[in-house]
């Protein structure tokens, strides 16, 4: 692992630098999602505005990190784990940027709901819970990336199913709401978008986790059964 080598050479230093940049971008995304969910549950319009405005920083981060990745590949022609790391980072930042978009979307939808003068959001407690789970997943994914921990990454893939279940529950509740009171249709739609955004954040965390397994183990675990994925994540431990 490059991070364990204290006497950085120039190249190692560049790799470590870009890893740190990714993690800092991740930190910003974590905070954005956390703040968006918090603003939604505390009816804090100013905070929502701030989250929406902050999104451009994440977008800029994505572009910058991607360019740096291309530059290192062109200049150093890395192989093996270093190449996988750069390829993986390039995909991880895309997922992080999408997560950032979702945070901004939650804030925007929140603003719409309050603009309509509704002070009660259906399923708010469930959405907050799912949102906290999603932030938790993203945090675990970034920690796994910082520690290059494939086993922790594999656990994320399983936990994402929990958020998906929660999303289905919210959908069912919203349908009941709409059936009971047609006046709730428009607000229910906004809430639906928010719930979907939270669910997507979970999916992006899962994608990041898969990239971490690819980086550390060298096996592509996208679209494979969970059992096999877990085996890949753990199995290689014995080889090392």
């Amino acid at each position, binding site marked *: 692992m490059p991070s364990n080598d204290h006497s950085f050479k120039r190249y190692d230093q560049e790799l470590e630098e870009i890893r740190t940049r990714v993690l800092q971008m991740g930190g910003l995304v974590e*905070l954005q999602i956390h703040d968006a969910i918090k603003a939604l549950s505390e009816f804090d319009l100013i905070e929502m505005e701030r989250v929406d405005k902050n999104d451009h920083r994440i977008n800029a981060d994505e572009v910058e990190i991607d360019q740096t990745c291309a530059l290192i590949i062109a200049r150093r022609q890395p192989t093996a784990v270093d190449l996988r790391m750069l390829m993986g980072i390039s995909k991880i930042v895309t997922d992080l940027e999408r997560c950032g978009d979702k945070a901004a979307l939650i804030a925007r939808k929140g603003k719409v709901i309050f603009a309509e003068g509704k002070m009660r959001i259906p399923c708010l407690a469930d959405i907050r819970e799912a949102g906290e789970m999603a932030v938790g997943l993203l945090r675990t994914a970034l920690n796994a990336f910082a520690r290059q921990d494939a086993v922790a990454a594999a656990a994320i893939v399983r936990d994402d199913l929990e958020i998906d279940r929660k999303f289905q529950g919210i959908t069912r509740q919203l349908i009941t709401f709409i059936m009971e009171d047609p006046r709730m249709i428009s607000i229910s739609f906004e809430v639906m978008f928010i719930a979907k955004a939270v669910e997507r954040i979970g999916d992006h965390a899962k994608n990041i986790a898969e990239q971490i397994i690819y980086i550390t183990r060298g096996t592509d675990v996208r679209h494979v059964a969970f059992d096999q994925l877990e085996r890949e994540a753990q199995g290689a431990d014995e080889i090392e």
Partner: protein
Amino acid sequence: MNSFWAEIFFVIAVSIVAGLTSWFFFSAFWAIVVVVLVLSLFTAHHFYQLTRLMRWLRQPVGTPLPKGGGAWEDVFAELHRRSREAAEERNSMKTALERFRHAGQALPDGVVILDSNQVIEWFNTTAEHHFGLSRDKDVGSRITNLLREPTFVSYIGAGQYADPLLLHPVRESGRTLALQIVSYGDAQSLLLSRDITQLEKLETMRRDFVANVSHELKTPLTVVSGFIETLLDDLSDLSEEEAKHFLGLAHEQAQRMQRLIMDLLMLSALETGSPPPTEERVALDDLLAEVTDEAMTLSKGRHQIVPTGTNGAGLLGSRNELRSALGNLVTNAIRYTPAGGTIRISWQTDDDGSGVFSVSDNGIGIENHHLPRLTERFYRVDRGRSRESGGTGLGLAIVKHVLTRHQAVLKIQSELSHGSTFSAQFPAHRVTHGAISKTS
């Protein structure tokens, strides 16, 4: 040194004697052969010892030394002494280091040691909890890889560590950490973290308290000054009746302010005063009678008030404080019970010597989720109702203070629209029994 020369002389002497003897008996050739043989034997002996020494050196530290012969005996002994000394020194260093580690672990604040690249070198258990670090995985990682909050990243990047950073970690909502970085030694730094969640909560409470007091004083004052203004402007236009009405209302508000200030003074006296005496006996009969009288006056016959006997029991403590606390409980019951309700005031002594004073009503009751916050200053279940009935919002805060000073506990049971029971449980050492003559 002596043994060195002795050995040299011994070798020379033995070779000369052996050489001369063989020359004498055989010939010069055999003499040389014998001398060479003797010298070779000595050399072989030394090589053998040297090999043993080498073999010992390759063994791990702590292997016992082989026994040497002749001058080697000294060499081995000296080496043995040195290795023992080194081992002892190492052990004492290890203990000292261990002690430092333990001291670091025992610190109530989180400590992370960072090198010049902000890479984690060591951290204690508190830091592990504060930042969610993992002992086996995170030593050797950059701190910003794991503590990713943008405010922290820019704080550590800016290099200005004079002021601490207040961090609300995403990991744990509601927690507040105060972080400070201290540079030391060779571009190394210490990251210190302290959990100030409680402190912040206290600060918020203090701010709220000041805001509440100002608000509570401002409202009646506005009313009073409004009336005065009206009277000043059109005193001549007002009939005597109207003027009296206005003055009456102003008087009511002024009294309300006075009550509030009395309560505030009482609270501050309770907070700063000396602990209540333990030898002054307060007769409960008197106290209960006084409190019941007060209740009757306030109720004006709208409620049925049922006091029970005390069997001559008494309390040890401050009469004034107890009178105020128990009085507050009873007046509260009157205020929150609609006309026609029943209020029971009772005293009960338990077998273990402790006693319970309780006031139950069949009034409006309190929802359960309000109960834990009820004794907070200015906490109100229903703002409007409380003020119109003349409450200051400090009554239960005073009760709780007084009871705490007497080591008693306030228990509240309540059911919405069925009524509430407030009971003060006094410990045995504050309760006296039997018909001792009244001394108060």
